[in-house]
């Protein structure tokens, strides 16, 4: 067993692609034995992680996230960086299955020797994504990747989770996609360190420039989270590569500024705290469902609420009481 763990640790540190992939599978596994192993591996690799630039990328479906990452990733790889892309894809709540088509649009990057792309199903367990993506990030950093991109579908809770584990949060937008600012939640806008208006090419260029001004105005109304960084708005095209490098320069500039001001260290500590809370919440949930009394009473109570014989509040109170005993 211990030998086994060492095999994974050595493999990741030796930058073995296959063993890195297998380690991520262990992290994602729902089997307690796998989780135990994964925990030991992550703990051992933690000292080798932390140097990478962690970027979160989000945007509504159709905004061109995958294509943007393909262009951006290729540019970085050409500059000599080792790029890891972690993409979270939604699982069907009905069948539990998922379709992960991120690489369909990352044709070149997915073959690049300096790139590693791992799509993951969001899975049934809520909050699970948070732990898994964080730990996968550690594995990738220990395997020598110095730029980590985490891609999420731009709907709902996942942005906030991802924003809490990266240093730079990039929001991709489209020009002329209708109700401009109404389309995105203010909450997501607040998280962004930069907004990039994608598909700024051809006939769309002028519209993109106009949208840029709109967003700049909107952002100037928000109080920035950082003392040294004012969120910026860019236009870019994953097709013509215009603006792609400017965004990378901004990310590096952001990092330099936050490093000097001590905010980066602060952010990393905050990330660790968020990580801890995510683990605590997951553990609590896990304990609840594994509690013998709870799982015995659960079907009956669920039925009682469904039939209207018990009120939701009384049922919840009863279940939590069982968990405490």
């Amino acid at each position, binding site marked *: 067993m211990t030998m086994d763990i060492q095999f994974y640790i050595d493999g990741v540190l030796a930058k073995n*692609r*296959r063993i890195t992939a*297998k380690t991520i599978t262990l992290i994602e596994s*729902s089997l307690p034995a796998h989780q135990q192993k994964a925990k030991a591996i992550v703990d051992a690799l933690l000292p080798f992680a932390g140097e990478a630039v962690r970027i979160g990328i989000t945007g509504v479906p159709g905004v061109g996230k995958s294509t943007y990452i393909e262009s951006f990733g290729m540019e970085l790889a050409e500059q000599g960086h080792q790029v890891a892309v972690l993409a979270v894809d939604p699982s069907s709540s009905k069948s539990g299955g998922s*379709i*992960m*088509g991120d690489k369909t649009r990352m044709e070149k990057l997915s073959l690049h020797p300096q790139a590693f792309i791992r799509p993951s199903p969001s899975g049934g367990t809520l909050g699970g994504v948070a732990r898994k993506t964080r730990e996968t990030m550690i594995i990738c950093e220990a395997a020598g990747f110095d730029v980590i991109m985490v891609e999420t579908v731009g709907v709902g809770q996942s942005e906030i989770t991802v924003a809490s584990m990266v240093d730079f949060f990039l929001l991709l937008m489209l020009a002329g996609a209708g109700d401009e600012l109404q389309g995105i939640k203010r909450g997501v806008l607040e998280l962004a360190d930069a907004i990039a208006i994608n598909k700024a090419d051809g006939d769309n260029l002028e519209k993109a420039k106009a949208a840029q001004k709109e967003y700049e105005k909107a952002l100037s109304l928000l109080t920035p989270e950082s003392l040294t960084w004012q969120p910026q708005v860019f236009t870019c095209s994953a097709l013509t590569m215009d603006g792609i490098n400017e965004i990378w320069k901004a990310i590096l500039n952001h990092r330099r500024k936050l490093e000097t001001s001590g905010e980066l260290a602060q952010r990393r500590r905050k990330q660790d705290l968020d990580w801890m809370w995510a683990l605590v919440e997951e553990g609590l949930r896990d304990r609840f469902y594994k509690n013998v009394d709870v799982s015995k009473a659960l079907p009956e109570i669920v039925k009682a609420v469904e039939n209207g014989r018990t009120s939701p509040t009384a049922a919840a109170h009863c279940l939590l009481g069982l968990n405490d005993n």
Partner: protein
Amino acid sequence: MKKVQKRCETERQSKPSQASAKFQPSRTMMLINRRIEEFVERNGRRPRILVSSMGKKHHDQETKLLATFFAETGFDVDVSPMHQAPQGAARMATENDVHVICFLSVMNRHKELVYELAESLKAEDGEDIRLVIGGSVPQSDYDALYRAGIALILESGAVDIELMNRLLDVLEKK
């Protein structure tokens, strides 16, 4: 989904030898779903399959259909870029750590592609990944394909419940 089922049914009509059981989507589908849940309990994750399309444009539709069908039955499905080369498929399969690659046959080239794919998988330390082939393959090639490492042939690219059961058999045989 419906389209896939329809195709399964029409295929049954044209090949009466295969029509052993009556096609009952809801009940049989439930049995498959249960098998998959059991798989998850044993392995800690869903069966993960890469649907790789190595062929030309008309394969796109077929790829999407197959991917949807697998996801509907409870698989985690990775979809390849178009015209994926065997080396690319092997790299994607090992990196995403899938259990099985389902690749769509390309007229007259399937044997050669299978050899290349098996070789590439070996080079990427992915010998444990199973290979299945979908699409029309002449019966005379079956033996050669099995010898080259194909675990299952999904005739005409259409997948029915019986084949799903056989696919799960393949995945559970470690």
